[in-house]
Each structure stands twice: as C-alpha cells, then as structure tokens.
C-alpha cells in the first residue's frame, strides 16, 4: 500500500471541505470538525474507502483496518472493493480532455438536460429555462460523484450539492477541481461539497441518531442522483433502499444504468472497451447490468418511490454526442436535438436496450 495512514491523514487536513462537511449533522464549524469523537467516526469511513486504492489487492486480508472500524460492517459494504480501486486508478485522468472519461464528459450535458426537464415535469422546479440558477434552493445528493462532473454542473445551476464517492482519490480530485471555479465558491448560490463514503456509510455514521433529527438537520435531500453507479454496486437492493432513505418526502430520485441485453454487451463491452477502446477495458461488468423493469421494480419496492419516467440515451457516432431518445410516454425532453434527432427514431424498447435514465418520486410525508 503506497499510501500510509499518515499520508492520508495529512491529506485530510488539507481538504477543508471534507472537514467542514463531514463535521457532521449540522456542526459546520471547522473547529468542531476536530473534536476527536466526530473525527474518529469520519476518518474511519475514510480509511475504509482508501483500502480500495489501486495498489491494494482485494483478495488479501489487509482490509483489516476497514473491518476494525466499527461502523463498516460487511452488511452495508455495498460497493465492491475492486470497483473502487479501478476508478481510483483513473481519477487522475478524470478531467483530461481525451482521457478515458471522455464519454462521460460528453454524457454530462444530456444528463443535466434530463435532470432539469424531469424536475420541471414533476414540478420540483418551475419551468424557467431563462433563469440563470434554476436549481437554486435544492439540496442535491450525487451518489458516485467521481471527479465531480455532475455535481459541479448541478451546483453551477444553483443547487447545493453533496457529492459522495467511495474513492478518496476521486473525492480529492473533485475537491481540487471544484476550487477552480468562483461560481462554486461563493460566486453563485450553488455550492458543492464532497464526502468519500458510500451511501450506506453516510447513513450508518448517523444510525444512532434519530431519523427525525436527521431530517431536521437537512441530511435528507430534495434530489438524489446516482448515475451509472448501480451497475458497479455489489448489493443493488441495499443500495436502492439507502437512496430512498436519503430522499426527503416528495423528493426526486434520478438513476441511470445499463440494460443487460445482447446489444448492450455488444456496444459497451465489445465495442466501447475492446474494439474501439473508447473506455478502459474492464469498465463494465455486463452481468451486473440491470434491465429497466428490474430497476423500476427495485425502486418501487426498496426505495419506496414511484417511477415516473424511463428514457434511453444513446451515443450518436455521427454527431459525436450523446442524445436522449423518446421516453416511454412519448415525450422528448431533449430540446437541443429537436424532433429530428437521430436517436428518437429508435423505439423505446430499442432505445433503452443500452443506457437509460429512470426518474422516480418519493411519496409526500404522511
């Protein structure tokens, strides 16, 4: 393991946002973040995450530090260690223009378009295309934020975003990058903070706290996004349940993942990874892909949310852009491609055969 504990803790000290943010349940003063008890809980989560760094073999037993941590029992260990290591290795290249995350960068604008249009459609935000900060006032949780692509964009649109990632490298990357824009640092209404915990751990750190108190302290969110994450998760059922718990009543859940179809195998594993090398080999585990019906059922049963929309997204090799396809209810939210968009020619079953979005709404408070 190339990163010693000392090294990691020294890093933590220069990640003020983590300190501030994870000072926990509303205690936002940096001073209080150094209260030993709180610090211990938080750093425990970090150590747990850092075991997934690239030089660490998941088959050996040296995640003892993680298992010695009282709050990270295997029952909530929802993110696969190998998966964390994989992305941490790539986090350096996260923001590189032609790097392995190029496709993800290209995907970001349609993602934002989808989220905006869904939030508008269900009335969470008013239809204000002209307003500079349409997401102002919303607390958004981005689970699996990676380098902070989506989180930053949402924050630029006015949201207060909490980004969550299982990899400390990703979170560091995201923090460094978020510093580079005045708009995210007091220049606008939006803000972004990052925590390198799994969604499960975020809850678990506070599990002794009354759920009602959590809500009071704002640790529930208006919008929870988790895009292209669930297919990397070992226990999707547990994951979905936690996502549901983190939503405020009447909150919106936005997910995206890939269908487990022959076409998706062909495109994502064979073409994108092996033939065209658009993304690194091993990025996708086809067997973990989830079909829209399965995901919808999971969201309804486990996250206790009502599914309102499923819509495909496809890469148009001619324009070099990701384009949203027609959704199941026939609406087309992707105004930028117009009705003539190439992808909209595909019928829904075909369109959702690879990548798709799902949006759901949690029931109002009883």
């Amino acid at each position, binding site marked *: 393991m190339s990163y010693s504990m000392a090294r990691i803790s020294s890093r933590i000290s220069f990640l*003020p946002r983590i300190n501030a943010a994870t000072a926990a349940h509303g205690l936002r003063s940096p001073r209080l973040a150094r209260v030993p008890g709180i610090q211990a809980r938080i750093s425990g989560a970090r150590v747990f995450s850092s075991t997934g760094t690239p030089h660490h073999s998941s088959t050996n037993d040296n995640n003892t530090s993680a298992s010695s941590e009282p709050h990270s029992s295997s029952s909530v260990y929802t993110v696969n260690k190998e998966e964390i290591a994989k992305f941490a290795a790539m986090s350096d290249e996260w923001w590189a*223009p032609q790097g392995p995350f190029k496709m993800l960068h290209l995907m970001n604008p349609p993602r934002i378009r989808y989220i*905006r249009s869904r939030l508008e459609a269900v009335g969470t935000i008013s239809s204000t295309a*002209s307003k500079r900060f349409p997401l102002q006032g919303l607390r958004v949780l981005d689970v699996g934020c990676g380098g902070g692509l989506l989180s930053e964009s949402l924050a630029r649109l006015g949201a207060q975003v909490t980004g969550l990632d299982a990899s400390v490298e990703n979170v560091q990357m995201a923090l460094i990058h978020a510093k580079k824009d005045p708009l995210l640092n007091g220049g606008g209404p939006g803000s972004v903070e990052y925590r390198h915990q799994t969604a499960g751990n975020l809850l678990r750190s506070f599990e002794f706290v009354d759920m009602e108190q959590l809500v009071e302290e704002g640790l529930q969110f208006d919008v929870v996004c988790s895009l292209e994450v669930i297919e990397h998760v070992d226990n999707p059922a547990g994951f979905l349940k936690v996502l549901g718990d983190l939503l405020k009543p009447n909150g919106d859940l936005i997910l995206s993942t890939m269908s487990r179809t022959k076409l998706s195998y062909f495109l994502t594993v064979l073409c994108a990874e092996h033939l065209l090398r658009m993304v690194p080999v091993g990025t996708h585990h086809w067997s973990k892909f989830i079909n829209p019906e399965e995901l919808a059922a999971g969201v309804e049963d486990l996250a206790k949310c009502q599914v309102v929309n499923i819509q495909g997204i496809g890469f148009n090799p001619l324009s070099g852009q990701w384009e949203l396809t027609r959704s199941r209810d026939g609406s087309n939210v992707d105004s*930028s491609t117009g009705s003539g968009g190439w992808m909209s020619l595909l019928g829904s079953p075909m369109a959702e055969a690879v990548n798709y979005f799902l949006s759901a709404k949690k029931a109002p408070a009883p």
Partner: protein
Amino acid sequence: MATHILSSTARSGFGSRLHSVATCRLPLARSQLPHRISAIRVQSTTAQDTTAPEQYDVVIVGGGIAGSALACALASGKASSTQKIGLIEAFDLSSHAKWSPRPDQYSNRVSSLTPKSVAFLKKIGVWAELDPSRVAEMEGMQVWDGVSGARITFDAANATSTRSSFLHQVLSTSGLIGNPAADLEYRDSSFNDGSDIKSSPLAWMTENLHVQYGLQKQILGHQERGVKLDIFERTKVQGITVKQAYPTDADVSAPAGSTAADVSDWPVIELDNGKKLQARLLVGADGVNSPVRSFASIESLGWDYQQFGLVATLKVDHLTSTAPGNGVGIAWQRFLPTGPIALLPLNNGFASLVWSTTPKIAQDLKKLPASDFCVLVNAAFSASPAELEYLYKNIGPDGQPLVDFQQETEWRAGVQDMEAFRTAFGSSRTDAKPPKVIEVQENTRAPFPLRMRNSNSYVEDRVALVGDAAHTVHPLAGQGLNQGLADVECLARVIEQGLLSGSDIGNIHSLTPYSSERFLPNLAMLGTVDKLSKLYNTDLSPIVWARSLGLTAVDSMGPIKTEIMRFAMGLEDAPHSNRS
C-alpha cells in the same frame, strides 16, 4: 511560479496544465512545495494591488465584426446575457455608432452576407439597425473563365426553388442535416417576407462599417439593459499570461473553509492602460496574426498566395449592361490567369471591386490615373488575358500609362464584338456583359495580401478562436466574413447551451462542440476556395479545357448547381448547426 508569457517561448501551453493537475501527487511536484508557497505569497500581495485582475466570464480580444458580433450574441442570449463580458479593441469602437455616411460615397470594405449570416444578424437584432438603402440585394451571379469563356450563372431561383434537392432530401430524412422544419424556419427568418421564397436574394452586400454600426448600436442597447458588457477600446493587449496551476498546495496554504476559488489557470489579459482582466473563457477574434492564438500555442498552417487583392468603390453605368434588368443586383466574377476579378453590386449605381492579381500589378493599379484605371477594369471583364498582359506591361514606373489605354482597348473590343456578333449566328443567347465602370471613388483603391490559413485547433482549455484568428480564406468566394459569423453563431450557441447545462464554459469539454462543428465546414470551404483559386490560376490548355468542360457541365446540371449554391449561401450545413 511558472508563468506563461505571450511569446514564442510559451510552448508548453495549455495541455500541460491539466497534466500538472493530474500529477500533483507525484514526489517531484511535492518537492517544489516551498518554492511554490512563497510564490503564492507574492501572488497574494500583488492581489491586493490596484492591478489585481478583474474576473470576467468571457473576454473577447478584437472588436472587429466577429468579436463585436460575439459580444452581441452573448448579450442577447437568455443565459449568456447573465455573464460578465469584456470586449477589447485596439482602435475606436464607440465612433462606429455615430457612423453617418454620405449617400454618394461608399467605403471600399464591403462584404457579401449569405442568408445564413443575415439570419444570424437578425437573431441578434443587428439587422434591424441597418439602413436598407445601404444594403444591396444580390439577385444573381455570373462567373466565367477569362481564358475559355466558359460560364456559370446563378440566380436566386436556382438556390431556393429546388431547395429540396435529392441529396438534401436523403440527408434530411435520415436526420443527418437538421430537420426540414428547422430549415424552413431558418429560411423564413432570413428572407424578408418568407412568403415568396423564390425572390429572395443570394446574398446581401453591405459595407463592413455598416455592420459595425449595427453591432455597436446593439451593444449600447445591451449595456443600457444592464448586461455586464464592458468595452475596452483604444486599448492594446500587452500580454496574456497564465500561472502554472498547483492547486492542491494552494489549498494547503489556504485557511480551512476558505471560499476563495483558485483561478490560477484562467488566463490574465494585461492591457496597456495597466488594467488586468482574468477570463474564464478567452476568445481570440483578433485577426490573422492573433495574439490569443500564439498565447494558446495553437499552430496555424497555410500559405500566402502570390497575389494581392485590390479593392475599390466604383460607379457603374447600368445602361451598358446586357444582363436582364441592366445587371442591377448581379455580381460579376471573371477568372483571369492572374486571379479573379469581381464586381459586386451596391445601391445607387455603385459597385465594389475585388481584384485579385499579382503584387506588382496590384501596386501599379493603385497608382494608375482614375480614368485609365476604369478603362483597365472594364478591359479586365472583357478583353483577352493576352490583351490585359499587354496593358499591365504598359503601366510606367510612375503609374502613368505608356500607351493610350482607351484606344487600345477600344480596338480590341471592336474586333471581339464583331467576332462575337458573327459567331453568335444560330445561337440562342449571348453572354451577358457587366455594366461599364465610369468612375472610381477617390482614395478607395487599396491592395492587401491574400492568404490561406487554418488553425490546427479552434479551442484550447479556456481559449476559443473565431473568424480570421481561426482561419483566413481567399476572397474569391466572399466567404471570409460569413465563416467568421458562422463561428460566432456556433460559439454563442455552445456557450448558451453550456450555461444551461451547468458547464464551466471555459472548460475544453464545453468548447469542443464548437470546434467539432466548425472545423470541418471551415476546412471544406478553405479547401474548395483554395483549389478553385489554383485551378483558375493558369492558362495551360488541358487544364483550361477540363475546367471549362466541368463548369459548363455544372451550369447545365440544376441539382448540382443548387448544391453548390446552398454550400456558398451557408444553407447546407454540418449536422447540428440548425439546432438551437
């Protein structure tokens, strides 16, 4: 702290910055820590100086038509109008708003605006500011080979009546080029009534100053509406610098919880009045020798044609033209072995000349007495290349003609007319003649060198190039300004969409769509124009024969001609430019 200065030594450029971010954890970077911290301190003390850079979202260097149009387009966008925009121009900008030309005088800098450009100018409110009496509609074009006489004619009906050509239909139904509805809308907005498509002009001719006037009017209007659009005129850019970014350690030294952003990778533009601007996005609209392009270490490839263009404002006698309607509103272009000569219609019997020729002839033409110049222009549209060669040779070192140009050309014209009259026997038509030039407006003859350039890339992180800074084209197709406006339209759209999707508009990822949309169409246009120029820059018989055969064939093939026109009019487009 490593500083990139605007000079040839700034080689490592932008690409390396990202890299240094990515490698910030390497021991090497770490070992430089003390040095960098001290540098940061220096930075923080200068930050308290009066010269602390002011942050802007977009800084545009160059207030020419492209730069001003970008400022206008951004100020009129829903999201982009919320941005803080700076426009830097070395010369005067505000005086453009007071432009009040005499009706009997025209500037020699004239451009033809394609329907696409006009649609864009309408969209950003500039077109409405223009004086219709100084905008001439180009209804037709006559282009012919000065060696063989092969000719191609275009009129507005060609371009629009068969606008759903086969190729276009195939492409649009497969969704490759926009959707037909958007295309139609485009057309409606670009033409006056939208009802009678066939009567719409091929292009609109107007003075560049006139467009500048409209742009400046709009800019003032936007400023009054409260758009944060700052103009720095009569101000030169002294240097553009960017600090090498080591963000992690900057974060170390920053107090915990500090909200100060680290914008060290934003370029700082230093003005000669001591002011400093720091830009999220720096746009180079600063011409062929773009300082912004050099700063971004973007290479620009191309060549100088061994040609000069000579412009002039002319008065013509329309009664002498044999074209329908006395040739009013017709653009004439004749390809001579020395380069093409074009007569472009203006209003009130005025016309604009663009004569591409050898550097020596261009200089001689400038010195020639006005009356002889007119004789020579008329000869250039009718006499044989051999005759012209004789006339060029007989311009003395002092610019005085050594022979009587009038007499010489009259004799040759007589022989040619007689010949044409007799050979026209049995033919159903004769070639239309352009109107005779009767006067050249004083002090409007100006030569300029002709070049072809294309930047290897139009974007870098936090930098975008538009117009001549990105590409320069031979003027023979009148596409330079139109390409620039297409760039501006695209960049403004990309910025607007970037803002709507919460992107950092200076980030290379946000700018890439601009580059990928404009690079190929510009390259195609550059290549086409360059090949045309080379094809016609010879009088070698087999080439003359082949090109004439091709031209005559194209002239009789409607659909192909339509495609060519649509290309030239900016109506045939890259896949996504119709979307907005």
